[in-house]
């Protein structure tokens, strides 16, 4: 590959560009107008503005992105995750234009990207699926009859994409119409396809997924599991590997099913086969995420492979150089997703300016970030800011390392999930491995940031006072008492002040 256009923004665009640079491949960034100073634009060898902030006018604008790739001589496109990553029309347009799409072929994507179609195919191949799923559609009366037939509660999901966008639990028939129409609007807005589907809701399952890697010569391996049970709004916020719930036998069985899923679909490149694992140890195929996953770094940490480089090699036609029997899981890795959200009020998104960022460092700590001091977090895009990934020898040590790294992750100016996540990874039930998809609602429904203790209060007040006094002078202004006291300080003349936990 001579040049790769990265059709994404934020941390994943940077992640892909780093791999490209290390492989000696120049990159082209595309960006919307407010992203002109974004990190991915700064990192790329070339950057092209492709439109206005709404995704449909820029990051989802297929023709504009194709035209930019051709104009800049990019012979491959990496879509990252989200946006166009699982849009078969985009993959097909790339194929038509002779541009290598770094991901699965459009036909496999079309099959797997549609949960209804992929379920039919997998049932035929003997893959276990969740009971009671049905064909997609948007006729509310028909959906109501199907839901009643399978029995409430049911889940309504977008047929055309993942990430929990649009997903809702419906416990009673009277909730159906509102939930279905909201789901359809979110599906239309996020994926350009309003088709939805229903399935029987399984109580307190674990979310277990298998990373797969497939070349264009029929070779498929799995890179073991990730457990992603810790979710809010049906979207993962903490992921880990290995899962405490898998025995070696179950791991092998699920892994071979994952490989069978990939082979059945004619899948190539990196992908993820998602399963639900119920409390009796039965597992059900959910869907295939036909893209590099947000949580791919934890797999990289325990198997010692660079998944993005593998994607690029496989896409350019190379054979997989790894065999299943050579793969081992080493140690334990955890990822926490840092979102611009307020965990004290239902994880409402919090856009705004980031005033200061300091990322954690240290052995076994990786921070994949798309933010910097002074950047604006836009209302137009997903509120993910960065991903903090730790590796350590054991799960217990990895939990401690994560808690320590989160404590060192300073983001000022907007609300984020760092403090909340530190409490999650130190919760006794989490440390015991008693994780399931209802973990956050069960243990953290009313979470509040602890208020300052006596000494924290003093230090917070003092810090605000000291920051205010020295704000213009920088570090050297310290100690210049005479000059400072000449001018009236806002701290002397100002009114009352309020201190509280953020939120």
């Amino acid at each position, binding site marked *: 590959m001579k040049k790769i256009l990265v059709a994404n923004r934020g941390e994943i665009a940077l992640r892909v560009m780093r791999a490209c640079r290390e492989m000696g491949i120049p990159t082209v960034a595309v960006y919307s107008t407010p992203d002109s100073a974004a990190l991915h634009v700064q990192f790329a060898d070339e950057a092209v503005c492709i439109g206005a902030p709404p995704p449909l006018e820029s990051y989802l604008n297929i023709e504009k992105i194709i035209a930019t790739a051709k104009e800049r001589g990019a012979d491959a496109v990496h879509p990252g995750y989200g946006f166009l990553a699982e849009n078969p029309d985009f993959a097909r347009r790339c194929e038509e234009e002779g541009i290598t799409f770094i991901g699965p072929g459009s036909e496999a994507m079309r099959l797997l990207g549609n949960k209804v179609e992929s379920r039919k195919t997998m049932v035929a191949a003997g893959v276990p699926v969740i009971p009671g799923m049905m064909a997609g559609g948007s006729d509310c009366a028909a959906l109501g009859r199907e839901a009643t037939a399978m029995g409430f509660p049911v889940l309504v999901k977008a047929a055309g994409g993942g990430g929990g*966008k649009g997903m809702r639990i419906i416990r009673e028939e009277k909730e159906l119409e509102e939930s279905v129409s*909201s789901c359809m*609007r*979110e599906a239309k*807005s*996020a994926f350009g396809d309003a088709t939805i589907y229903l399935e029987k809701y399984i109580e307190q399952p674990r979310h277990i997924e298998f990373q797969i890697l497939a070349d264009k010569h029929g070779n498929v391996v799995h890179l073991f599991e990730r457990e992603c049970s810790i979710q809010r*709004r049906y979207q993962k916020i903490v992921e880990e590997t290995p899962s405490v719930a898998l025995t070696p036998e179950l791991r092998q069985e699920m892994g071979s099913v994952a490989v069978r899923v990939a082979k059945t679909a004619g899948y190539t490149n990196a992908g993820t086969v998602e399963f639900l694992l119920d409390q009796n140890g039965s597992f059900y195929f959910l869907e295939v995420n036909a893209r590099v996953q947000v949580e791919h770094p934890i797999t990289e940490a325990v198997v010692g492979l660079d998944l993005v480089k593998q994607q690029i090699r496989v896409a350019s036609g190379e054979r997989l150089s790894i065999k299943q029997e050579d793969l081992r899981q080493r140690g334990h890795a955890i990822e926490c997703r840092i979102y*611009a959200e307020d965990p004290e009020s239902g994880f*409402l*998104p*919090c*856009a705004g300016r980031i*005033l*200061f960022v*300091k990322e954690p460092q240290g052995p076994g700590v990786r921070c994949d970030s798309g933010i910097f001091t002074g950047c604006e977090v836009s209302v*137009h*895009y*997903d*509120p993910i800011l960065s991903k903090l990934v730790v590796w350590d020898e054991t799960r217990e040590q990895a939990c401690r390392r994560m808690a320590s790294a*989160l*404590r060192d992750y*300073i*983001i*000022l*100016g907007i609300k984020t999930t*760092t*403090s909340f996540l530190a409490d999650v990874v130190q919760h006794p039930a989490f440390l015991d491995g008693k994780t399931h998809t209802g973990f956050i609602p069960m243990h953290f429904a009313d979470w509040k*940031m*602890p*208020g300052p203790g006596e*000494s*924290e*209060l*003093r*230090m*917070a*007040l*003092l*810090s*605000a*006072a*000291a*920051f*205010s006094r*020295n704000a213009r002078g920088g*570090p050297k*202004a310290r*100690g210049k*008492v005479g000059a400072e006291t000449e001018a009236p*300080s806002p*701290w002397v003349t*100002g*009114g*009352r*002040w*309020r*201190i*509280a*936990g*953020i939120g």
Partner: protein
Amino acid sequence: MEFNFVVGDREEKLIAEEKEGLWSCTVGDAAFEAEVVRVGPNSFRIVSGGKSFVTYAAEQDGKFYISLGGRQYSVARTSGAAKRRSAVGGALKGEEVVAAPMPGVIVKVPVTEGEVVAADAVLVVVESMKMENNIRAQGEARVKRVHVKAGDSVNFGSALVELEPVSKQSA
């Protein structure tokens, strides 16, 4: 120097004298001393009572953001924007201005002016960062005014709808 704060629901007063980075302070009845060293544009090392702290601070629109020990706190003037916003709401006796809890784009306004809505009814659907958020009525009310329509962009705190008690008009 004298600083008046509100901590949670409690008022706190910080009295401080600073000389060469050494601060002599009183918070409430307790006096303490602290050595404050600015170690970066936004970070301080503070030694007080034999303990060492590292704190991070930033400021925007009169509001300070402080991080220490992995927790974040905000310190703001009560005469700032937040106070003014709540004053507008408070001025409407028995009525309520429902404000946007986040910046975003209005997806849908399922209510119309004059309509009586039940508790928990969806008043406005706001999309922010790809998620739809239902803004609901706290209790039964009549919709007095609707300020937004589908497609409008709103900021944090923008008025969405005004509600009034149901009894008021029927009386």
